[in-house]
Protein backbone atom coordinates (compact mmCIF):
# COMPACT_ATOMS: atom_id res chain seq x y z
CA UNK A 1 0.00 0.00 0.00
CA UNK A 2 1.46 3.36 -1.04
CA UNK A 3 -0.87 6.25 -0.20
CA UNK A 4 -0.46 9.57 -1.95
CA UNK A 5 1.67 12.30 -0.29
CA UNK A 6 -1.44 14.48 -0.06
CA UNK A 7 -3.20 11.88 2.09
CA UNK A 8 -0.09 11.26 4.18
CA UNK A 9 0.29 14.96 4.99
CA UNK A 10 -3.37 15.69 5.50
CA UNK A 11 -4.20 12.62 7.61
CA UNK A 12 -2.93 14.08 10.94
CA UNK A 13 -4.88 17.28 10.32
CA UNK A 14 -7.98 15.32 9.30
CA UNK A 15 -7.63 13.31 12.50
CA UNK A 16 -7.87 16.42 14.67
CA UNK A 17 -10.50 18.00 12.43
CA UNK A 18 -12.74 14.94 12.69
CA UNK A 19 -12.24 14.88 16.47
CA UNK A 20 -13.27 18.54 16.68
CA UNK A 21 -16.32 18.05 14.45
CA UNK A 22 -17.29 14.89 16.36
CA UNK A 23 -17.25 16.77 19.68
CA UNK A 24 -19.39 19.51 18.14
CA UNK A 25 -21.87 16.90 16.84
CA UNK A 26 -21.91 15.20 20.24
CA UNK A 27 -22.86 18.41 22.05
CA UNK A 28 -25.24 19.54 19.31
CA UNK A 29 -27.10 16.21 19.72
CA UNK A 30 -28.62 17.68 22.86
CA UNK A 31 -31.52 19.29 21.00
CA UNK A 32 -30.73 18.83 17.31
CA UNK A 33 -29.66 15.97 15.04
CA UNK A 34 -26.38 14.52 16.24
CA UNK A 35 -25.33 12.84 19.44
CA UNK A 36 -22.94 10.28 20.81
CA UNK A 37 -23.39 7.58 18.20
CA UNK A 38 -22.78 9.72 15.14
CA UNK A 39 -20.05 11.66 16.95
CA UNK A 40 -18.24 8.41 17.74
CA UNK A 41 -18.51 7.36 14.09
CA UNK A 42 -16.99 10.69 12.94
CA UNK A 43 -14.11 10.40 15.40
CA UNK A 44 -13.43 6.84 14.24
CA UNK A 45 -13.46 8.04 10.63
CA UNK A 46 -10.49 10.26 11.48
CA UNK A 47 -8.65 7.23 12.84
CA UNK A 48 -9.49 5.35 9.64
CA UNK A 49 -7.90 8.10 7.50
CA UNK A 50 -4.83 8.02 9.66
CA UNK A 51 -4.61 4.23 9.46
CA UNK A 52 -4.92 4.23 5.66
CA UNK A 53 -2.20 6.88 5.38
CA UNK A 54 0.27 5.66 7.99
CA UNK A 55 -0.65 2.03 8.69
CA UNK A 56 -2.72 0.36 11.39
CA UNK A 57 0.15 0.05 13.88
CA UNK A 58 0.92 3.80 13.80
CA UNK A 59 -2.78 4.64 14.15
CA UNK A 60 -3.04 2.23 17.07
CA UNK A 61 -0.13 3.99 18.75
CA UNK A 62 -1.65 7.39 17.98
CA UNK A 63 -4.85 6.67 19.95
CA UNK A 64 -2.68 5.28 22.79
CA UNK A 65 -5.21 2.97 24.46
CA UNK A 66 -6.41 -0.25 22.84
CA UNK A 67 -9.81 0.21 21.12
CA UNK A 68 -11.40 -2.41 23.39
CA UNK A 69 -10.32 -0.37 26.41
CA UNK A 70 -12.15 2.62 24.90
CA UNK A 71 -15.24 0.38 24.65
CA UNK A 72 -14.99 -0.57 28.30
CA UNK A 73 -14.40 3.06 29.38
CA UNK A 74 -17.38 4.22 27.31
CA UNK A 75 -19.64 1.55 28.79
CA UNK A 76 -18.44 2.51 32.27
CA UNK A 77 -19.27 6.20 31.65
CA UNK A 78 -22.72 5.33 30.28
CA UNK A 79 -23.46 2.92 33.15
CA UNK A 80 -22.28 5.47 35.73
CA UNK A 81 -24.51 8.20 34.24
CA UNK A 82 -27.55 6.20 35.31
CA UNK A 83 -26.54 6.02 38.96
CA UNK A 84 -27.67 9.56 40.01
CA UNK A 85 -31.15 8.45 38.95
CA UNK A 86 -31.33 6.35 42.12
CA UNK A 87 -31.38 9.59 44.12
CA UNK A 88 -34.36 11.12 42.26
CA UNK A 89 -37.97 11.02 43.44
CA UNK A 90 -38.84 7.96 41.32
CA UNK A 91 -35.52 6.33 42.10
CA UNK A 92 -35.36 4.64 38.70
CA UNK A 93 -32.03 3.82 37.07
CA UNK A 94 -31.13 6.21 34.23
CA UNK A 95 -33.59 8.87 35.41
CA UNK A 96 -31.59 11.86 34.29
CA UNK A 97 -30.72 14.65 36.69
CA UNK A 98 -30.59 18.23 35.43
CA UNK A 99 -28.84 21.44 36.50
CA UNK A 100 -30.00 24.66 34.90
CA UNK A 101 -26.93 26.89 35.03
CA UNK A 102 -27.54 30.61 34.56
CA UNK A 103 -24.86 32.17 32.31
CA UNK A 104 -26.78 35.11 30.90
CA UNK A 105 -29.20 32.62 29.37
CA UNK A 106 -29.99 29.21 30.85
CA UNK A 107 -27.58 26.37 30.14
CA UNK A 108 -29.24 23.01 30.81
CA UNK A 109 -26.70 20.42 31.92
CA UNK A 110 -27.80 16.86 32.59
CA UNK A 111 -26.58 13.36 33.15
CA UNK A 112 -28.03 12.62 29.70
CA UNK A 113 -24.93 14.33 28.25
CA UNK A 114 -22.71 12.01 30.28
CA UNK A 115 -24.65 9.03 28.93
CA UNK A 116 -24.13 10.35 25.40
CA UNK A 117 -20.44 10.79 26.09
CA UNK A 118 -20.35 7.12 27.09
CA UNK A 119 -22.04 6.17 23.82
CA UNK A 120 -19.50 8.35 21.96
CA UNK A 121 -16.49 6.64 23.53
CA UNK A 122 -17.98 3.14 23.10
CA UNK A 123 -18.79 3.67 19.43
CA UNK A 124 -15.38 5.24 18.85
CA UNK A 125 -13.69 2.20 20.41
CA UNK A 126 -15.82 -0.41 18.62
CA UNK A 127 -15.60 1.14 15.15
CA UNK A 128 -11.86 1.89 15.53
CA UNK A 129 -11.30 -1.74 16.49
CA UNK A 130 -13.09 -2.89 13.33
CA UNK A 131 -11.26 -0.38 11.10
CA UNK A 132 -7.85 -1.15 12.52
CA UNK A 133 -8.40 -4.88 12.17
CA UNK A 134 -9.51 -4.50 8.53
CA UNK A 135 -6.73 -2.06 7.55
CA UNK A 136 -4.16 -4.22 9.33
CA UNK A 137 -5.35 -7.28 7.41
CA UNK A 138 -4.84 -5.59 4.05
CA UNK A 139 -1.27 -4.50 4.81
Amino acid sequence: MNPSPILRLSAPMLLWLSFAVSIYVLVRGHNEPGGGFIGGLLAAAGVLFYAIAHGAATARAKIRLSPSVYCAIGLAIAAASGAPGFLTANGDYLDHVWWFVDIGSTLPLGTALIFDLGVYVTVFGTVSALFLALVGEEA
Partner: protein
Amino acid sequence: MLIVAPFLIPLLAAIATALLRSHLGAQRTIGVAASAALLASGLALAARTSDGAILVSAMGGWALPFGIAIVVDLFSAIMISIAGLMALAVSIYALGPGAGRRDRAGFQPLFHALMFGVCGAFCAGDIFNLYVWFEVMLIASFGLLVLDRTREQIDGGVRYVVLNLIGTTIFLIAVGLLYGQLGTLNFADLARVAPSAENQGLLAAIGVMLLIAFGAKAAVFPLFNWLPAAYHTASMPVAAIFAALLTKVGVYAILRVFTLVFGHDAAFFGPVFGAIAAATMVTGVLGAAMHYDVRRILSFHIVSQIGYMIVGVALMTPAALAAAVLYVVHHIVVKANLFLVAGAIRRESGSFALGRCGGLWCAAPVLSLLFVVPAFSLAGLPPLSGFWGKLAVIRSGFEAEAYLLAATALAVGVLTLYSMVKIWNEAFWKAAPVGARVRPWTRRERVAVYTPIAMLACVTLTIGVWVEPFAALAHTAAESLLDREAYIAAVLGADRALAEVAR
Protein backbone atom coordinates in the same frame (compact mmCIF):
# COMPACT_ATOMS: atom_id res chain seq x y z
CA MET B 1 -32.22 -0.38 42.81
CA LEU B 2 -32.63 -4.13 43.24
CA ILE B 3 -34.61 -4.45 40.03
CA VAL B 4 -31.70 -3.26 37.84
CA ALA B 5 -29.10 -5.32 39.74
CA PRO B 6 -29.52 -8.47 37.57
CA PHE B 7 -28.17 -6.73 34.50
CA LEU B 8 -26.08 -3.99 36.12
CA ILE B 9 -23.90 -6.51 37.98
CA PRO B 10 -22.85 -8.47 34.85
CA LEU B 11 -22.39 -5.18 32.93
CA LEU B 12 -20.04 -3.78 35.58
CA ALA B 13 -18.22 -7.12 35.72
CA ALA B 14 -17.78 -7.12 31.93
CA ILE B 15 -16.44 -3.55 32.03
CA ALA B 16 -14.06 -4.25 34.91
CA THR B 17 -12.70 -7.46 33.38
CA ALA B 18 -12.27 -5.75 30.00
CA LEU B 19 -10.27 -2.93 31.64
CA LEU B 20 -8.08 -5.39 33.58
CA ARG B 21 -6.93 -7.06 30.39
CA SER B 22 -3.58 -8.37 31.50
CA HIS B 23 -4.48 -9.05 35.15
CA LEU B 24 -5.96 -12.52 34.78
CA GLY B 25 -6.04 -13.17 38.54
CA ALA B 26 -8.04 -10.01 39.22
CA GLN B 27 -10.38 -10.86 36.33
CA ARG B 28 -11.12 -14.27 37.84
CA THR B 29 -11.76 -12.85 41.30
CA ILE B 30 -14.15 -10.27 39.87
CA GLY B 31 -15.80 -12.96 37.73
CA VAL B 32 -16.60 -15.28 40.61
CA ALA B 33 -17.67 -12.40 42.88
CA ALA B 34 -19.97 -10.93 40.23
CA SER B 35 -21.58 -14.31 39.60
CA ALA B 36 -22.19 -14.76 43.32
CA ALA B 37 -23.66 -11.24 43.51
CA LEU B 38 -25.92 -12.05 40.55
CA LEU B 39 -27.21 -15.15 42.33
CA ALA B 40 -27.82 -13.09 45.48
CA SER B 41 -29.73 -10.43 43.54
CA GLY B 42 -31.88 -13.11 41.89
CA LEU B 43 -32.72 -14.69 45.24
CA ALA B 44 -33.55 -11.27 46.73
CA LEU B 45 -35.89 -10.58 43.81
CA ALA B 46 -37.50 -14.01 44.20
CA ALA B 47 -38.09 -13.27 47.89
CA ARG B 48 -39.70 -9.93 46.99
CA THR B 49 -41.97 -11.47 44.33
CA SER B 50 -42.73 -14.83 45.98
CA ASP B 51 -46.25 -13.66 46.90
CA GLY B 52 -47.02 -12.89 43.24
CA ALA B 53 -45.98 -9.22 43.42
CA ILE B 54 -44.71 -7.64 40.17
CA LEU B 55 -41.86 -5.12 40.34
CA VAL B 56 -41.81 -2.41 37.69
CA SER B 57 -39.28 0.28 36.85
CA ALA B 58 -39.54 2.81 34.02
CA MET B 59 -36.00 3.67 33.02
CA GLY B 60 -35.30 7.30 32.26
CA GLY B 61 -38.52 8.36 33.96
CA TRP B 62 -40.62 8.23 30.77
CA ALA B 63 -44.21 7.28 31.47
CA LEU B 64 -45.22 3.74 30.54
CA PRO B 65 -46.10 2.33 28.02
CA PHE B 66 -43.68 4.67 26.18
CA GLY B 67 -40.69 4.37 28.47
CA ILE B 68 -38.40 1.39 28.73
CA ALA B 69 -40.11 -0.96 31.16
CA ILE B 70 -38.13 -3.29 33.38
CA VAL B 71 -40.58 -5.79 34.85
CA VAL B 72 -39.70 -8.59 37.25
CA ASP B 73 -42.33 -11.08 38.33
CA LEU B 74 -41.75 -14.38 40.10
CA PHE B 75 -41.01 -16.27 36.87
CA SER B 76 -38.38 -13.67 35.90
CA ALA B 77 -36.90 -13.78 39.40
CA ILE B 78 -36.69 -17.58 39.32
CA MET B 79 -34.95 -17.45 35.94
CA ILE B 80 -32.50 -14.78 37.19
CA SER B 81 -31.72 -16.83 40.31
CA ILE B 82 -31.04 -19.96 38.31
CA ALA B 83 -28.97 -17.98 35.79
CA GLY B 84 -26.93 -16.62 38.71
CA LEU B 85 -26.42 -20.14 40.05
CA MET B 86 -25.21 -21.27 36.63
CA ALA B 87 -22.92 -18.24 36.30
CA LEU B 88 -21.38 -19.08 39.68
CA ALA B 89 -20.90 -22.76 38.84
CA VAL B 90 -19.36 -22.00 35.45
CA SER B 91 -17.15 -19.18 36.81
CA ILE B 92 -15.65 -21.62 39.30
CA TYR B 93 -15.36 -24.39 36.71
CA ALA B 94 -13.63 -22.00 34.31
CA LEU B 95 -10.75 -21.67 36.81
CA GLY B 96 -9.91 -25.30 36.00
CA PRO B 97 -8.23 -26.92 32.98
CA GLY B 98 -7.44 -24.50 30.12
CA ALA B 99 -8.11 -21.38 32.21
CA GLY B 100 -4.98 -19.48 31.17
CA ARG B 101 -5.50 -19.83 27.42
CA ARG B 102 -9.23 -19.13 27.71
CA ASP B 103 -8.85 -16.03 29.86
CA ARG B 104 -6.13 -14.58 27.62
CA ALA B 105 -8.55 -14.94 24.69
CA GLY B 106 -11.06 -12.75 26.57
CA PHE B 107 -13.37 -15.30 28.20
CA GLN B 108 -14.24 -13.21 31.26
CA PRO B 109 -15.59 -10.00 29.59
CA LEU B 110 -17.52 -12.06 27.01
CA PHE B 111 -18.95 -14.37 29.66
CA HIS B 112 -20.29 -11.46 31.70
CA ALA B 113 -21.56 -9.72 28.57
CA LEU B 114 -23.50 -12.93 27.87
CA MET B 115 -24.96 -12.89 31.38
CA PHE B 116 -25.82 -9.19 30.85
CA GLY B 117 -27.90 -10.12 27.81
CA VAL B 118 -29.48 -13.20 29.41
CA CYS B 119 -30.54 -11.43 32.61
CA GLY B 120 -31.68 -8.38 30.67
CA ALA B 121 -33.96 -10.59 28.58
CA PHE B 122 -35.49 -11.97 31.79
CA CYS B 123 -36.25 -8.40 32.97
CA ALA B 124 -37.48 -6.95 29.68
CA GLY B 125 -40.92 -5.36 29.87
CA ASP B 126 -41.40 -4.76 26.17
CA ILE B 127 -40.82 -6.84 23.10
CA PHE B 128 -38.38 -4.51 21.37
CA ASN B 129 -36.14 -4.54 24.41
CA LEU B 130 -36.39 -8.29 24.46
CA TYR B 131 -35.01 -8.15 20.91
CA VAL B 132 -32.16 -5.88 21.99
CA TRP B 133 -31.24 -8.17 24.89
CA PHE B 134 -31.29 -11.14 22.50
CA GLU B 135 -28.78 -9.28 20.34
CA VAL B 136 -26.50 -8.49 23.28
CA MET B 137 -26.59 -12.14 24.26
CA LEU B 138 -25.93 -13.35 20.71
CA ILE B 139 -22.99 -11.05 20.05
CA ALA B 140 -21.33 -12.24 23.25
CA SER B 141 -22.11 -15.86 22.40
CA PHE B 142 -20.53 -15.54 18.94
CA GLY B 143 -17.30 -14.48 20.61
CA LEU B 144 -17.45 -17.22 23.23
CA LEU B 145 -18.11 -19.92 20.66
CA VAL B 146 -14.92 -19.29 18.67
CA LEU B 147 -12.69 -18.59 21.66
CA ASP B 148 -10.11 -21.23 20.69
CA ARG B 149 -10.07 -20.14 17.00
CA THR B 150 -9.92 -23.72 15.70
CA ARG B 151 -11.27 -24.67 12.27
CA GLU B 152 -13.94 -26.85 13.89
CA GLN B 153 -15.14 -23.96 16.05
CA ILE B 154 -15.28 -21.47 13.18
CA ASP B 155 -17.32 -24.01 11.19
CA GLY B 156 -19.83 -24.53 14.01
CA GLY B 157 -19.76 -20.80 14.75
CA VAL B 158 -20.67 -19.81 11.19
CA ARG B 159 -23.72 -22.08 11.19
CA TYR B 160 -24.74 -20.74 14.58
CA VAL B 161 -24.33 -17.12 13.48
CA VAL B 162 -26.24 -17.57 10.20
CA LEU B 163 -29.20 -19.37 11.74
CA ASN B 164 -29.41 -16.91 14.61
CA LEU B 165 -29.20 -13.91 12.30
CA ILE B 166 -32.11 -15.30 10.26
CA GLY B 167 -34.00 -15.88 13.50
CA THR B 168 -33.40 -12.36 14.82
CA THR B 169 -34.31 -10.83 11.45
CA ILE B 170 -37.65 -12.64 11.51
CA PHE B 171 -38.06 -11.48 15.11
CA LEU B 172 -37.41 -7.86 14.12
CA ILE B 173 -39.85 -8.02 11.19
CA ALA B 174 -42.49 -9.51 13.47
CA VAL B 175 -41.90 -6.73 16.02
CA GLY B 176 -42.37 -4.16 13.26
CA LEU B 177 -45.60 -5.77 12.09
CA LEU B 178 -46.83 -6.00 15.66
CA TYR B 179 -46.20 -2.30 16.15
CA GLY B 180 -47.96 -1.50 12.88
CA GLN B 181 -50.94 -3.58 13.93
CA LEU B 182 -51.33 -2.64 17.60
CA GLY B 183 -49.37 0.62 17.94
CA THR B 184 -47.46 -0.46 21.03
CA LEU B 185 -44.63 -2.77 22.02
CA ASN B 186 -44.95 -2.78 25.80
CA PHE B 187 -45.94 -6.28 26.94
CA ALA B 188 -48.67 -5.05 29.27
CA ASP B 189 -50.06 -2.68 26.66
CA LEU B 190 -49.95 -5.44 24.03
CA ALA B 191 -51.81 -7.76 26.39
CA ARG B 192 -54.38 -5.00 26.93
CA VAL B 193 -55.10 -4.28 23.26
CA ALA B 194 -54.43 -7.65 21.58
CA PRO B 195 -57.73 -9.39 22.47
CA SER B 196 -59.76 -6.55 20.93
CA ALA B 197 -57.58 -6.08 17.81
CA GLU B 198 -59.55 -6.00 14.56
CA ASN B 199 -57.47 -8.31 12.40
CA GLN B 200 -56.96 -11.41 14.55
CA GLY B 201 -55.75 -13.39 11.52
CA LEU B 202 -52.80 -11.06 10.97
CA LEU B 203 -52.08 -11.11 14.68
CA ALA B 204 -51.92 -14.91 14.60
CA ALA B 205 -49.55 -14.73 11.62
CA ILE B 206 -47.28 -12.37 13.60
CA GLY B 207 -47.50 -14.86 16.45
CA VAL B 208 -46.27 -17.62 14.17
CA MET B 209 -43.33 -15.43 13.04
CA LEU B 210 -42.41 -14.84 16.67
CA LEU B 211 -42.77 -18.56 17.28
CA ILE B 212 -40.25 -19.25 14.48
CA ALA B 213 -37.83 -16.67 15.91
CA PHE B 214 -38.07 -17.92 19.49
CA GLY B 215 -38.25 -21.53 18.33
CA ALA B 216 -34.93 -21.19 16.53
CA LYS B 217 -33.41 -19.84 19.76
CA ALA B 218 -35.02 -22.55 21.87
CA ALA B 219 -33.98 -25.24 19.35
CA VAL B 220 -37.43 -26.79 18.93
CA PHE B 221 -38.34 -29.12 16.08
CA PRO B 222 -37.59 -28.50 13.16
CA LEU B 223 -35.18 -25.62 13.95
CA PHE B 224 -32.70 -27.44 16.17
CA ASN B 225 -30.00 -28.42 13.65
CA TRP B 226 -27.63 -25.64 14.58
CA LEU B 227 -27.46 -26.67 18.23
CA PRO B 228 -25.66 -30.04 18.12
CA ALA B 229 -23.45 -28.63 15.31
CA ALA B 230 -22.31 -25.66 17.35
CA TYR B 231 -22.33 -26.76 20.99
CA HIS B 232 -20.01 -29.71 20.68
CA THR B 233 -17.20 -27.53 19.36
CA ALA B 234 -17.19 -24.99 22.18
CA SER B 235 -14.82 -25.24 25.13
CA MET B 236 -16.44 -26.92 28.11
CA PRO B 237 -17.38 -23.99 30.39
CA VAL B 238 -18.82 -22.21 27.34
CA ALA B 239 -20.80 -25.26 26.27
CA ALA B 240 -22.12 -25.64 29.82
CA ILE B 241 -23.38 -22.05 30.09
CA PHE B 242 -24.85 -22.22 26.55
CA ALA B 243 -26.58 -25.51 27.34
CA ALA B 244 -27.92 -24.10 30.58
CA LEU B 245 -29.14 -20.70 29.45
CA LEU B 246 -29.26 -19.86 25.73
CA THR B 247 -32.07 -22.17 24.65
CA LYS B 248 -33.87 -21.39 27.89
CA VAL B 249 -33.98 -17.70 27.03
CA GLY B 250 -35.92 -18.80 23.94
CA VAL B 251 -38.20 -20.91 26.13
CA TYR B 252 -38.64 -17.96 28.48
CA ALA B 253 -39.62 -15.71 25.56
CA ILE B 254 -42.13 -18.30 24.32
CA LEU B 255 -43.66 -18.68 27.79
CA ARG B 256 -43.81 -14.92 28.33
CA VAL B 257 -45.11 -13.81 24.94
CA PHE B 258 -47.55 -16.64 24.29
CA THR B 259 -49.19 -16.35 27.71
CA LEU B 260 -49.27 -12.56 27.85
CA VAL B 261 -49.72 -11.28 24.30
CA PHE B 262 -51.23 -14.29 22.52
CA GLY B 263 -52.87 -15.87 25.56
CA HIS B 264 -56.33 -15.02 24.26
CA ASP B 265 -55.63 -17.08 21.12
CA ALA B 266 -54.68 -20.30 22.94
CA ALA B 267 -57.22 -22.29 20.92
CA PHE B 268 -55.11 -21.70 17.79
CA PHE B 269 -51.63 -21.94 19.33
CA GLY B 270 -52.31 -24.83 21.72
CA PRO B 271 -52.39 -27.62 19.10
CA VAL B 272 -49.42 -26.02 17.25
CA PHE B 273 -47.33 -26.10 20.42
CA GLY B 274 -48.57 -29.62 21.17
CA ALA B 275 -47.28 -30.93 17.84
CA ILE B 276 -43.99 -29.02 18.22
CA ALA B 277 -43.51 -30.34 21.75
CA ALA B 278 -44.06 -33.97 20.77
CA ALA B 279 -41.86 -33.76 17.66
CA THR B 280 -39.10 -31.99 19.59
CA MET B 281 -39.09 -34.57 22.37
CA VAL B 282 -38.94 -37.52 19.97
CA THR B 283 -36.40 -36.21 17.43
CA GLY B 284 -34.07 -35.00 20.16
CA VAL B 285 -34.00 -38.27 22.04
CA LEU B 286 -33.59 -40.35 18.86
CA GLY B 287 -30.71 -38.09 17.76
CA ALA B 288 -29.04 -38.69 21.11
CA ALA B 289 -29.53 -42.44 20.87
CA MET B 290 -27.48 -42.73 17.68
CA HIS B 291 -24.42 -40.73 18.81
CA TYR B 292 -21.32 -41.89 20.65
CA ASP B 293 -19.73 -38.52 21.46
CA VAL B 294 -20.63 -37.34 24.96
CA ARG B 295 -21.09 -33.72 23.85
CA ARG B 296 -23.35 -34.66 20.93
CA ILE B 297 -25.48 -36.94 23.10
CA LEU B 298 -25.93 -34.15 25.62
CA SER B 299 -26.64 -31.57 22.90
CA PHE B 300 -29.43 -33.68 21.43
CA HIS B 301 -30.86 -34.18 24.90
CA ILE B 302 -31.18 -30.40 25.28
CA VAL B 303 -33.43 -30.48 22.21
CA SER B 304 -35.46 -33.36 23.59
CA GLN B 305 -35.94 -31.69 26.97
CA ILE B 306 -37.09 -28.40 25.44
CA GLY B 307 -40.14 -30.37 24.26
CA TYR B 308 -41.19 -31.00 27.86
CA MET B 309 -41.15 -27.27 28.56
CA ILE B 310 -43.23 -26.50 25.48
CA VAL B 311 -45.95 -28.89 26.76
CA GLY B 312 -46.74 -26.17 29.31
CA VAL B 313 -47.62 -23.61 26.61
CA ALA B 314 -49.48 -26.25 24.61
CA LEU B 315 -51.91 -27.00 27.42
CA MET B 316 -51.99 -23.50 28.98
CA THR B 317 -53.42 -24.73 32.28
CA PRO B 318 -51.95 -23.53 35.60
CA ALA B 319 -50.72 -27.05 36.35
CA ALA B 320 -49.03 -27.38 32.94
CA LEU B 321 -47.32 -23.99 33.18
CA ALA B 322 -46.18 -24.74 36.73
CA ALA B 323 -44.76 -28.00 35.40
CA ALA B 324 -42.95 -26.08 32.66
CA VAL B 325 -41.41 -23.65 35.18
CA LEU B 326 -40.33 -26.50 37.46
CA TYR B 327 -38.96 -28.36 34.45
CA VAL B 328 -36.94 -25.36 33.25
CA VAL B 329 -35.31 -24.99 36.67
CA HIS B 330 -34.56 -28.70 36.98
CA HIS B 331 -33.30 -28.94 33.42
CA ILE B 332 -30.94 -25.96 33.62
CA VAL B 333 -29.22 -27.34 36.72
CA VAL B 334 -29.00 -30.89 35.45
CA LYS B 335 -27.95 -30.13 31.89
CA ALA B 336 -25.22 -27.68 32.86
CA ASN B 337 -23.96 -30.21 35.36
CA LEU B 338 -23.81 -32.98 32.73
CA PHE B 339 -21.72 -30.74 30.49
CA LEU B 340 -19.41 -30.00 33.41
CA VAL B 341 -19.12 -33.74 34.05
CA ALA B 342 -18.41 -34.31 30.35
CA GLY B 343 -15.50 -31.87 30.68
CA ALA B 344 -14.25 -33.86 33.66
CA ILE B 345 -14.61 -37.14 31.69
CA ARG B 346 -12.51 -35.57 28.95
CA ARG B 347 -9.90 -34.45 31.47
CA GLU B 348 -9.86 -37.90 33.07
CA SER B 349 -9.79 -40.08 29.95
CA GLY B 350 -8.49 -37.71 27.27
CA SER B 351 -11.47 -37.93 24.92
CA PHE B 352 -15.13 -37.10 24.41
CA ALA B 353 -15.60 -40.18 22.20
CA LEU B 354 -17.20 -42.92 24.29
CA GLY B 355 -15.23 -45.63 22.45
CA ARG B 356 -11.98 -44.24 23.82
CA CYS B 357 -13.21 -43.73 27.38
CA GLY B 358 -13.61 -46.36 30.04
CA GLY B 359 -12.72 -47.49 33.50
CA LEU B 360 -13.64 -44.23 35.17
CA TRP B 361 -15.54 -46.15 37.84
CA CYS B 362 -12.17 -47.24 39.22
CA ALA B 363 -10.11 -44.20 38.21
CA ALA B 364 -12.55 -41.55 39.46
CA PRO B 365 -15.15 -43.02 41.82
CA VAL B 366 -16.28 -39.61 43.11
CA LEU B 367 -16.88 -38.37 39.57
CA SER B 368 -18.90 -41.53 38.87
CA LEU B 369 -21.18 -40.84 41.80
CA LEU B 370 -21.50 -37.20 40.79
CA PHE B 371 -22.41 -38.25 37.23
CA VAL B 372 -25.17 -40.54 38.46
CA VAL B 373 -27.10 -37.69 40.10
CA PRO B 374 -27.70 -35.44 37.06
CA ALA B 375 -27.84 -38.36 34.59
CA PHE B 376 -30.59 -40.22 36.39
CA SER B 377 -32.31 -36.96 37.19
CA LEU B 378 -32.38 -36.16 33.46
CA ALA B 379 -33.94 -39.56 32.80
CA GLY B 380 -36.52 -38.86 35.51
CA LEU B 381 -35.69 -41.43 38.18
CA PRO B 382 -36.98 -40.79 41.71
CA PRO B 383 -36.06 -39.28 44.08
CA LEU B 384 -34.23 -36.77 41.86
CA SER B 385 -35.51 -33.45 40.54
CA GLY B 386 -36.23 -34.83 37.05
CA PHE B 387 -38.77 -37.25 38.46
CA TRP B 388 -40.89 -34.40 39.81
CA GLY B 389 -40.45 -32.36 36.64
CA LYS B 390 -41.56 -35.23 34.41
CA LEU B 391 -44.32 -36.26 36.82
CA ALA B 392 -45.72 -32.73 36.82
CA VAL B 393 -45.59 -32.47 33.01
CA ILE B 394 -47.17 -35.88 32.42
CA ARG B 395 -49.82 -35.44 35.10
CA SER B 396 -50.82 -32.06 33.72
CA GLY B 397 -51.05 -33.75 30.31
CA PHE B 398 -53.42 -36.41 31.60
CA GLU B 399 -55.46 -33.83 33.50
CA ALA B 400 -55.87 -31.78 30.33
CA GLU B 401 -56.79 -35.02 28.49
CA ALA B 402 -53.81 -34.68 26.14
CA TYR B 403 -53.10 -38.41 26.33
CA LEU B 404 -50.90 -38.63 23.24
CA LEU B 405 -48.65 -35.83 24.49
CA ALA B 406 -48.38 -37.39 27.95
CA ALA B 407 -47.63 -40.82 26.49
CA THR B 408 -44.90 -39.33 24.27
CA ALA B 409 -43.34 -37.67 27.30
CA LEU B 410 -43.33 -41.01 29.14
CA ALA B 411 -41.76 -42.93 26.25
CA VAL B 412 -39.10 -40.26 25.70
CA GLY B 413 -38.16 -40.58 29.37
CA VAL B 414 -37.31 -44.25 28.84
CA LEU B 415 -35.16 -43.47 25.80
CA THR B 416 -33.38 -40.76 27.81
CA LEU B 417 -32.51 -43.40 30.36
CA TYR B 418 -31.04 -45.48 27.52
CA SER B 419 -28.66 -42.67 26.52
CA MET B 420 -27.58 -42.04 30.09
CA VAL B 421 -26.96 -45.74 30.67
CA LYS B 422 -24.95 -45.76 27.45
CA ILE B 423 -22.64 -43.02 28.77
CA TRP B 424 -22.41 -44.84 32.09
CA ASN B 425 -21.55 -48.19 30.49
CA GLU B 426 -19.02 -46.80 28.05
CA ALA B 427 -17.26 -44.11 30.04
CA PHE B 428 -17.46 -45.47 33.55
CA TRP B 429 -18.22 -49.18 33.65
CA LYS B 430 -16.30 -50.88 30.84
CA ALA B 431 -12.57 -51.57 31.24
CA ALA B 432 -10.19 -48.72 30.47
CA PRO B 433 -8.76 -48.88 26.95
CA VAL B 434 -5.20 -50.16 26.85
CA GLY B 435 -2.48 -47.56 26.73
CA ALA B 436 -4.59 -44.59 27.82
CA ARG B 437 -2.35 -42.23 29.74
CA VAL B 438 -3.58 -39.04 31.32
CA ARG B 439 -1.69 -36.18 32.89
CA PRO B 440 -2.33 -36.22 36.65
CA TRP B 441 -4.69 -33.57 38.01
CA THR B 442 -3.31 -30.63 39.90
CA ARG B 443 -4.97 -29.83 43.21
CA ARG B 444 -6.27 -26.51 41.85
CA GLU B 445 -7.88 -28.20 38.83
CA ARG B 446 -9.53 -30.79 40.99
CA VAL B 447 -11.07 -28.18 43.30
CA ALA B 448 -12.23 -26.00 40.37
CA VAL B 449 -13.86 -28.93 38.54
CA TYR B 450 -15.39 -30.84 41.44
CA THR B 451 -16.78 -27.91 43.46
CA PRO B 452 -19.40 -26.77 40.89
CA ILE B 453 -20.32 -30.35 39.93
CA ALA B 454 -20.93 -31.24 43.57
CA MET B 455 -22.75 -27.95 44.17
CA LEU B 456 -25.19 -28.54 41.30
CA ALA B 457 -25.65 -32.19 42.27
CA CYS B 458 -26.66 -30.97 45.75
CA VAL B 459 -29.21 -28.61 44.18
CA THR B 460 -30.63 -31.50 42.12
CA LEU B 461 -30.87 -33.66 45.23
CA THR B 462 -32.46 -30.83 47.23
CA ILE B 463 -35.16 -30.26 44.62
CA GLY B 464 -35.68 -34.02 44.47
CA VAL B 465 -36.03 -34.67 48.17
CA TRP B 466 -37.66 -31.42 49.26
CA VAL B 467 -39.77 -30.54 46.26
CA GLU B 468 -42.76 -28.85 47.97
CA PRO B 469 -41.39 -25.28 48.22
CA PHE B 470 -40.10 -25.42 44.64
CA ALA B 471 -43.41 -26.78 43.33
CA ALA B 472 -45.29 -24.10 45.29
CA LEU B 473 -43.09 -21.36 43.82
CA ALA B 474 -43.54 -22.77 40.32
CA HIS B 475 -47.28 -22.78 40.88
CA THR B 476 -47.33 -19.13 41.99
CA ALA B 477 -45.17 -18.21 38.98
CA ALA B 478 -47.55 -20.07 36.65
CA GLU B 479 -50.59 -18.37 38.12
CA SER B 480 -49.04 -14.94 37.71
CA LEU B 481 -48.12 -15.87 34.10
CA LEU B 482 -51.78 -16.59 33.40
CA ASP B 483 -53.10 -13.56 35.31
CA ARG B 484 -52.84 -10.97 32.54
CA GLU B 485 -54.98 -8.40 34.37
CA ALA B 486 -52.56 -8.32 37.30
CA TYR B 487 -49.61 -7.82 34.97
CA ILE B 488 -51.35 -4.99 33.10
CA ALA B 489 -52.39 -3.37 36.38
CA ALA B 490 -48.86 -3.57 37.78
CA VAL B 491 -47.25 -2.01 34.72
CA LEU B 492 -49.81 0.49 33.48
CA GLY B 493 -51.66 1.31 36.70
CA ALA B 494 -54.85 -0.18 38.07
CA ASP B 495 -57.31 2.18 36.35
CA ARG B 496 -56.36 1.17 32.80
CA ALA B 497 -56.58 -2.51 33.66
CA LEU B 498 -60.00 -2.03 35.23
CA ALA B 499 -61.22 -0.13 32.19
CA GLU B 500 -60.18 -3.13 30.13
CA VAL B 501 -62.04 -5.59 32.37
CA ALA B 502 -65.15 -3.38 32.22
CA ARG B 503 -65.00 -3.34 28.45
